[in-house]
């Protein structure tokens, strides 16, 4: 999918007064109440007992996967605000499986209107025929209300399946779901499929991909990371969301599951330590601040390096020990990177506050190039030190 060619793709799904203001707002009650109804939403849909609440609890509430056994089945719609802690401000709406979208009393325009992504959860360990029928109805309905909605299908609970069966059911679900949609006349609606399980990091990766599509600055962030890692000798860098540990962006090299797991675990360690020892006074709730950084050396010659980017984001780098000898260069490059990210979001905020039509001036293309150029020069500047 082309995110550049199609700026309306996400612009349309974001309300105009939606701000990415993680830098100046700090528990700002007024603005949050104002935006409350306009946040982009991620809707979790699926048949009952397919694991929606478990996903939400594991990804955003750090519940351990085993505890989800004891979750009651959800009986009413649960809104979950992710805004107060994370860069990406959105709501997760966890629907009870039995609610019928087509019920006339169900206010689908309100619910689907501001919705950025529709995540449909299919239990792969169960017979999924009913789920596919429901998927088709849901997507059709959602598309009619909001044509910019991104439809994602999580083929969930694949931990219990063997590899062959996993492949078969993925192929089968893919085939049948796209067929169903084609029959309903929605050839152009694109479904993305993810094999997920709460018992490994696949659910985090899948959620990362969903969230990335909702962030207009995502390609810019990726380019910035590319520049950072090529100039610092880093092998892999993740921009992690502090609370949920999903990655907002990573560089363009292939994501290896182990590196991502390492990054998540490191994030956990840092958060735990800073929660225990980082508290200065009782009133302070957030102990993760711009002083936060961490360095872990593994015995295989790999270094994990974590730096705070802003209140909601952390950068985790994986690099070789020999490349870490010039830590000063890496730190300098990191400061350039952090500055660039700040610029990216400030530009966005400026566009919004000046009230210009975002459809014209706020196209993401303008941002990455400008931002990329600025860091490019600073990075080039640091290059001689590296060589």
């Amino acid at each position: 999918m082309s995110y550049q060619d199609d700026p309306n793709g996400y612009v349309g799904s974001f309300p105009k007064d939606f701000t990415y203001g993680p830098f100046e707002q700090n528990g700002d009650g007024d603005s949050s109440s104002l935006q409350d109804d306009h946040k982009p939403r991620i809707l979790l849909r699926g048949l009952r007992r397919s694991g929606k609440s478990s996903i939400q609890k594991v990804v955003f509430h750090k519940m351990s996967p085993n505890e989800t056994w004891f979750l009651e089945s959800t009986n009413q719609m649960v809104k979950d605000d992710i805004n107060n802690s994370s860069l990406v401000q959105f709501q997760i709406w966890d629907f009870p499986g039995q609610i019928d979208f087509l019920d006339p009393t169900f206010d689908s325009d309100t619910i689907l209107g501001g919705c950025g992504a529709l995540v449909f959860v299919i239990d792969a360990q169960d017979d999924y025929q009913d789920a596919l029928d429901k998927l088709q109805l849901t997507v059709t309905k959602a598309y009619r209300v909001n044509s910019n909605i991104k439809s994602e299908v999580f083929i969930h609970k694949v931990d219990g399946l063997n590899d062959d069966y996993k492949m078969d059911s993925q192929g089968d679900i893919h085939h049948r779901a796209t067929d169903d949609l084609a029959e309903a006349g929605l050839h152009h609606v694109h479904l993305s499929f993810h094999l997920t399980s709460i018992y490994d990091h696949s659910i985090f990766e899948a959620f990362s991909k969903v969230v990335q599509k909702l962030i207009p600055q995502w390609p810019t962030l990726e380019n910035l990371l590319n520049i950072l890692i090529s100039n610092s000798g880093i092998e892999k860098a993740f921009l992690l969301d502090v609370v949920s540990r999903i990655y907002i962006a990573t560089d363009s090299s292939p994501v290896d599951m182990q590196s991502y797991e390492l990054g998540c675990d490191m994030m956990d360690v840092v958060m735990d330590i800073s929660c225990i020892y980082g508290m200065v006074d009782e009133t302070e709730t957030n102990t993760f601040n711009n002083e936060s950084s961490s360095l872990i050396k593994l015995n295989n010659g790999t270094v994990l390096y974590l730096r705070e980017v802003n209140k909601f984001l952390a950068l985790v780098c994986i690099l070789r020990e020999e490349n870490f000898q010039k830590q000063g260069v890496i730190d300098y490059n990191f400061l350039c990177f952090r500055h660039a990210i700040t610029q990216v979001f400030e530009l966005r905020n400026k566009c919004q506050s000046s009230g210009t039509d975002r459809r014209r001036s706020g196209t993401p293309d303008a941002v990455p190039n400008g931002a990329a150029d600025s860091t490019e020069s600073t990075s080039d500047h640091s290059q001689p030190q590296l060589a």
Partner: protein
Amino acid sequence: MIPSNTICVSEEGPANALALNKDATQVVIAGRNVFKVFSIEENDFTEVCNLRVGKNLNLNFSSIDVAWSTIEENTLATAATNGAVVVWNLGRSGRSKQEHVFSDHKRTVNKVSFHLTEPALLISGSQDGMMKCFDLRMKEVARTFISNTESIRDVQFSPHQAHTFAAVSENGNVQLWDVRRHERCLQQFTAHSGPVFACDWHSEMPWLATASRDKTIKVWDIHAKPNLEHTIYTIASVGHVKWRPQKKYQVASCALVLDCAVHVWDVRRPHVPLATFAEHRDVTTAIAWQNDPNTFLSTSRDCSLYRHRFSEAAHPVLWANPHGVCVSARGDVTHAAPDCPLPALHTNPASDRYVPGLGRKQPTAGSLRPQAQAALERLFPGGAASILTRYSGEGRPPCCVVACAKEYKMRGLPTHELAEHNAKVARAYNRHMVGHVWEVVRCVYGRPPPREPPEREPPPPPPAHTNSNAVEEEPLEEVEQWAETQFHNSGVLGMPTLSIYIPPHKYKIRHDATGACGPEGSGWVSAASAHYVDVETADWTLPEEAFPLRAPPPAHQPSILDTTHGRTAAGGASPGGSSSPGSGSSGSNGSACTAPPNLEQTSSAYPGAATLCRAQPEEGESGPLWVVHEALRPHVEPAPLLALALRHHADLGDVQTAALVMIVLHEHRSDLFPYIDEGLQEHWLLGYIEFLQKHKLWNVATEVVRCAWLSSVWSLSQQSSSVTVCCGRCGRRARPRAMCDRCLPHPDLCAVCRQVVRGLYAWCQGCSHGGHLEHMRQWMEKHQLCPAGCGHHCQLG
């Protein structure tokens, strides 16, 4: 350290990619900080040109991928992280060879590749899921292909159809496109459960190899509908894959993480690489074959460029211990392993472990006489330590448990008659221990039929095997003979293969008392063969039988029961090589011990219920044990003993007996309830039902469900039954009570008269063909097969 004829050049930084020119005389390597052309000489690489020059070294010089035109000698293309596709012309005068920069992609370009016949066409695959086809003459984008997937990781033109190219993406999909049509892809299929990182077309076959993060390489036949031909399982995410030229079945791969080596696989041998090149000290980033099958180049993150020769390859097959396991259609399992020190075999825990339902394990080589063993070791020093073991179930119908399940009766008659019937069935399948349990049930819970047991009952079919309670060794006279005849070449390539066959040790086989075991006694040979894999042989096939089995010697071994005869008079047959004679005497209170030694407690408890004696074995074979008369002693309560016996059977894995005895007991069942808790009962029943369903004995399983006394079990038939409806025309599953949406416009035709059916439509539920009720009825009076010609035996009504 470095092998003498492998060439290594260190550069200033690691290269991400390399490409060869069309004659494979020059190689270009490209990375973040390096972009150089080398000419390949006999023992050396010589730097021809450094393209990373100039004042303005921007991000366009940091390449992710590089491609060399397959036609033009001087044209190169690179892909950069900032989305630029740069075309270079080596023939340009001056220092900068940069010809043109296409900055159409906004995100990282992962792959560039030239058209194989059209020199001006270049295609790129980018992180944003788009592919762009560039026309080098017009210096602009000719077409943009939007894949609607996540990042495109590799694009490759097909060598078979000039306009087709394959694109693989991070969501596990493979797409085939026509380069002239950008609206829709020709085909799309899900190839892997993780991101796909690379693909490569086979030069002769219509095959596409894909490499993925799910640690597999898959080979797809793209001829018509994509069909999975082969799967290779590696130890790490696979980053690159390249077919070996001129070899139909061989493919080279390198890993993305963990594994630094380059492996060459034979796709028909998916678990062990054919050859491994482990020179690199960091993960390999690119590989390219040098137009001939014996040399290839590879670059790595350790900043080196190697030329590997196939003659220096390591062959992991040679290091491996050949272990063979094979399961036959009848449920026999054989296992062959070398390198196990012979004496250690006796302490091998596996050999002591009883495998229910599979039979006994026979360590053949381990029980050779010392001198035979010495002779063996002299003859075959390398393979003398081989063993071949076999868990056998041969000599009886495929599975006696299944066969019994079909013939057992579980209701309709009084308990003792059912038990009698079932006892006969069990005996007929040589499950004497089980038969015995049934006899006990008959005696305890039924009226004694007045008869002389040995005459009344039909003698069981002569068991095809013999009993013995001790392992006897037979002199190994024919060492020389087998040594000559059995030295086959079972090598895969006609190369000499070290094969060794260890002569069978003639076991005297006992009946397995539980009936779970069949006759063994076949001679077993074992072989340890180190298959040397010939690198020159282009096309070899794996042997179908790694170990040619020697024909089993006659299983019937008379004259070995002499030692036991004395004891059988006392009624004690104590089978099992490890059993002590004492187990026979445990039945010393005038009753028979009928259990194997590990049953001692149970069996010594039996006598209270019935007095059993053993038919005298006549022709050296043991007859089964017969119940002669029942002396039901009033003070003995049979229920706890029976419960114990059932538990024991269940512990042996024979849940069938446990479940069925409980079913057959009917009104006496409640006697056992104090001794077997309900959870266990349910466990048995469900286990048996699952077993039956696994063997597709649906009717029997339903019968069991029906006979069940536990509500949780008999309610099974009401819970999990579902009926799905599928459309008779297209076979798609339709929604219940509705016509298939797809076939709705077409009316249903009568299979007999081919007219549209109005009114009643009768159809066969098996094959879903049907038609006018009257026509179908007439047809079925005369015919059995479906009128539509599908070959189904239809049933109407």
